[in-house]
């Protein structure tokens, strides 16, 4: 299993699929389908992940120790026991923050060049 990199910057840039999965988990632990729906909703349907892409990404994130499997259930009565929940690790959180910061810097740069406007 790959060890987590100590410097989050060294994991950047992330692929869109990885970034969106980490962003979805930044809102709390989720199971696979919830991650997929969150990505779909947050990108207005522009990124639609299939089961293969999602679990391929999950596998690589688990190997990189950016996420981990959670044994806790938000509400065991309402949920299916077979579902697997995932959450961000400390390193994962640092990486997603660093990537978000990187995007923010890019947006700032684009604004400086008047390519995009500030939101009203």
């Amino acid at each position, binding site marked *: 299993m790959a060890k987590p990199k100590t410097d989050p910057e060294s994991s950047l840039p992330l692929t869109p699929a990885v970034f969106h999965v980490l962003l979805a988990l930044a809102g709390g632990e989720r199971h*696979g*389908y919830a991650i*997929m729906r969150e990505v779909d909703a947050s990108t207005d349907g522009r990124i*639609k*992940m*299939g*089961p*293969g*892409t*999602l*679990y*391929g990404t*999950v*596998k690589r994130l688990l190997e990189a120790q950016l996420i981990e499997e959670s044994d806790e259930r938000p509400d065991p009565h309402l949920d*299916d026991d*077979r*579902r*697997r929940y995932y959450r961000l690790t400390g390193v994962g959180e640092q990486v997603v923050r660093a990537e978000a910061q990187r995007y923010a810097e890019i947006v700032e740069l684009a604004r400086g060049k008047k390519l995009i406007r500030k939101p009203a």
Partner: protein
Amino acid sequence: MSNHFNNRTLTVSQKVYDWLLRAYPPTHREEYGPAMAQLFRDHCRDAWGEARGWGVAKLWLRVLPDLVKTSFIERLAALNERKSMTDKMTALMQPRTVFLKVFAVVFLLILCATVAITFIMPESYASTARIKADSDNPSNDPYFLQTTFEIMQSQAVLVSVIDKLHLNTVWGKKYYGGETLETTNTLAMLKSRISLAPIRNTKLINITVYSEDKNEAAQIANAIAKSYQDYRIKVAAALAVVSLNRLQEQWRQNEKQIEQVRAEVSSSGQQLKIGSVISDNPSPQEQAYWDKKQYLDGLLETHKALYAKNEVGKLDVQIPKTVLVTVTDPAVPGHSPVRPNKTLNIVLGVLFGIFLASIAGGISVLIALKFRKRIDKSAITN
């Protein structure tokens, strides 16, 4: 029936997906296979809830390319983990073997998807009612056909079809879990199921309606024909009333004019003491009298003609022109579904499968050759 179809569609989809998971390497399948199958089940259930068979078909169109791409990536990743990689890769990356394997997998996947989608897609029946439509205008109207098509798909015709067949409630129950639909939504759905076609060199028009229920298709096609017929009768009756009012107004004016001219002729005749026969050499006053009398005769003739027209107009109002639209062939329920065309779909699936599988095979050969080069290079340098 809906639940039965629901279960069948979802069960078949899940079984096919479970089987397709074999494309992934065993380790990946053992670890994530059940979770992927669970995710697909959830997605499938929601897709069915959103758009029934079409939703599931669209899901398959998204899931299949994902499955092909990611299974290939996972296979390559699994190969990288093996210790005797060089030997195995060299054996595996034989261009011919790679091409045949990838061709077979892609072709089978596409064929399976085509077959699955063809059998998942809801069956649709078509029913056609044929009408003969004549123009109100006796002269040749070049836009008559286009106008007729637009009217037949307008609210004026279709809303009464929706009301008559209670489509807001019926389709609400069938497609939206019992919720009564807004007429605008039902109208849009209805329009998407209608196809209108003229029959060349005739005044006949085919009204074809598609539905998964053969009886409903026939009922709707007949209701559209009847509604259009009623619309034309209503319009013709309204036009007849307008025309009659105009004629009556003309008749009244003509009558007034006759009274006036008759009084003038009578007073002038008495003053000039003119008999019933015109003299050989009439004076200018006498000539004016005779001209006026002739004008009066003309007015009386017009009066007679207007009277006759009035009577015809009254008849047009009392007996509407039902012959403007006649239903020559009412729609009957179809015997067999017209959509999906299973044979055509499968033939297209085979052709498309061969095409895509050849491309995928070609790309795999290029990748394999690249890998072999890299392996050969590392074997020399290590």
